[in-house]
């Protein structure tokens, strides 16, 4: 069997699975699986760039995805009336001051001679900068959060078309990746893992607690959409007529129509990124990355700048995750910092990359669809399994109730098992690297 035939069959298999869901459950859930599958594929593409091309282990995907979500809010939401004049300048000034402090400290580090005097000056600069930063930030934040806290209480966004947020989300993620890469790359490979684990937790903590920026756990809802609202479509006689021509009632027709529009948008992004990733893989740059991955010492001896290449690819991969994060928040229409779980946004993507085939872009896309499908379907399957196991037990027994309740945790177990089994028995994944 040729590779092309095998790959086609694999993708056809997923299509069949999704069609079965469409017939058995509903077309709405089938389309939802496709759109989330597309987003997952984009994330997996980004991680594949880091792991498959360069062997970098990123455990902070959740953080980069969340930064993309933040971009959707900051770009798409309308600005809060009066918030900027109340405290916006103060906040921006404080942030600039904070950045300035760090730059000043770095300059002192560079310019002065090493010794206790330099350490003292650096510490003084940082401490003074921190207190100034807080003195400027705190009152501004208080003023912003006072404005209609039940509805807004935050700065709001720029009110631009939300599609702009997608590349901006990538930029946000790239900036965070640069910070991490600059410190942790070039050291042991495990350090990058730990540093990314940390930055992800911190980004989520910031989103949860900085109410002036994201409304924190009060969530931002009603992020503008790039597609029409279902309710508008249902009130549009032209649309109702067209839906009727397909033999659908307007409610179902409008939900399907909106989902298809999202799918087209996401598919376009995936195709562009996929094309770019394929070009990168087959370019001299991609070959250099793989050479570095396979033998760092030899590549360095050939005069390749290993750390700089790693930094590049780490930033690019994280940016792709940021884009996917912005897309996801756009589709959800809300930013809910409480829902970012490492299991869902970091670990699941890793399973996608490993199962699909690390080092192969097509594999990442396949893994994205397949694992997302499993992720959605494991819970009903687990519940069914538990019902079968417990069917012999007495009705209302404590063990039976406990087992059925615990079916929700089957996901963690299943995904962990899938990862370990694939790593052990088929480490190259479904579509191996050529």
């Amino acid at each position: 069997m040729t590779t092309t035939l095998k790959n086609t069959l694999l993708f056809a298999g997923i299509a069949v699975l999704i069609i079965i869901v469409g017939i058995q459950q509903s077309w709405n859930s089938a389309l939802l699986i496709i759109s989330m599958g597309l987003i997952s594929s984009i994330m997996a593409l980004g991680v594949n760039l880091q792991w498959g091309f360069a062997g970098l282990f990123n455990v902070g995907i959740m953080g980069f995805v969340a930064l993309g979500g933040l971009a959707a809010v900051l770009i798409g939401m309308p600005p809060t009336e009066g918030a900027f004049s109340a405290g916006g300048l103060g906040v921006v000034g404080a942030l600039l001051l904070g950045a300035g402090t760090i730059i000043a400290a770095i300059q002192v580090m560079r310019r002065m001679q090493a010794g206790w005097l330099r350490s003292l000056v650096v510490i003084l600069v940082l401490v003074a900068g921190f207190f100034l930063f807080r003195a400027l930030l705190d009152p501004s934040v208080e003023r912003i959060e006072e404005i209609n806290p039940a509805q807004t209480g935050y700065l709001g966004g720029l009110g631009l078309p939300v599609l702009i947020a997608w590349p901006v989300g990538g930029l946000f993620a790239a900036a965070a990746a640069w910070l991490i890469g600059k410190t942790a790359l070039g050291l042991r490979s495990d350090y990058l893992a730990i540093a990314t684990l940390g930055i992800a937790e911190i980004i989520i903590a910031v989103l949860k607690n900085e109410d002036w920026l994201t409304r924190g756990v009060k969530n931002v809802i009603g992020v503008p959409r790039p597609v029409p609202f279902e309710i508008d479509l249902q009130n549009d006689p032209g649309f109702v007529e067209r839906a009727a021509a397909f033999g659908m009632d307007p409610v179902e027709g409008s939900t399907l129509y909106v989902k298809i529009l999202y799918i087209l948008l996401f598919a376009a992004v995936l195709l562009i990124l996929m094309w770019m990733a394929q070009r990168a893989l087959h370019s001299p740059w991609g070959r250099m990355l793989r050479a570095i991955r396979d033998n760092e010492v030899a590549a360095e001896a050939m005069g390749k700048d290993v750390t700089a290449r790693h930094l590049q690819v780490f930033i690019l991969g994280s940016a792709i995750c940021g884009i996917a994060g912005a897309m996801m928040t756009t589709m959800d229409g809300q930013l809910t910092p409480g829902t970012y779980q490492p299991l869902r946004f970091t670990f699941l993507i890793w399973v996608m990359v490993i199962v699909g085939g690390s080092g192969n872009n097509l594999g990442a896309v396949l893994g994205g669809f397949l694992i997302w499908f499993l992720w959605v379907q494991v819970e009903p399957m687990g519940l069914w399994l538990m019902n079968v196991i417990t069917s012999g037990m007495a009705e209302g027994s404590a063990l039976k109730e406990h087992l059925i309740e615990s079916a929700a945790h089957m996901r963690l177990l299943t995904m962990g098992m899938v990862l370990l089994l694939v790593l052990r028995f088929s480490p190259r994944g479904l579509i191996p690297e050529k």
Partner: protein
Amino acid sequence: MDLLNALVAFLNYVFVPGVAYGSQLALGALGVTLVYGILRFSNFAHGDTMAMGAMATVLMTWLFQSWGLTLGPLPTALLALPFGIAFAIGLLLFTDRAVYKFYRVKKAKPVILVIVSLGVTFIYNGVTRFIIGADDQSFFDGQRFIISARDFKAMTGLDEGLSFKTTQAITIVTAIIVVIALFWFLNKTRAGKSMRAYSDNEDLALLSGINPERVVMITWMIVATLATIAGVLYGLDKSFKPFTYFQLLLPIFASAIVGGLGNPIGAIAGGFVIAFSEVTITYAWKKILVYLMPENLEPSGLVQLLSTDYKFAVSFVILLIVLLFKPTGLFKGQSV
């Protein structure tokens, strides 16, 4: 008098919690550092190993409590602890046989083992939630305080009370005993010496006839013991919730790296550095400053450098600083 009040407030809110938390982190970091030294990978499953060991202990505690078996003023969990440790040892030895050994024999790259340990993390996490659920579980019993704030105030006549919880005392005492036992084992016994030899130079150790599988087995047993003790102490002191153990990974790794990965003394020092930084930076100092400052200079705000929600940021920043300036850690670790 004011000075004394300030001192008592400092002890009560900063020093005692810091020492207890530092002991818990140090025990966790010791486990991470031992795995790193002997098996040469960063074990992401350590947090959830702590959760598994603690879970077994919690279940045994409940069983003992239902039998009416208690230790009087001490928590029953101490009685259940050996069973928890035995369970964790069994679990880790099984995991090693079923999962890690394959990669060790193949001499896989450390980063592969890190990914594998992440897979193990999620299986452990799933099993923990499957058995005991994702919610907070309380398993503390016995006497709550050794000195309660009210008694202390009555005793000394100060405005500030100093409370000393039983769990804090147990944490500190246990940590000291465990650390002494561990260092005695590593420095005085044959098995401990062979572990250090294997950690320093694998090839030389093999040539001297040290059995690597035996070293690995002993390491896992010690790691299981440390993880369970750390997990139970943390659970007693705060509360047992599966997800918090995953979140503890960051401060634990930060402690191990700050001290120098692979260096046990460093792990202990790192644990206290991280714990005290977290506590001092997220504590609202107003309470103490009120006593120390003249009345007209009293601070208006809380004088809290960062809100407690950012305690992870503290360990992270310290981690970044160490990686930037001294990647081998305060005490010389193995890693470059």
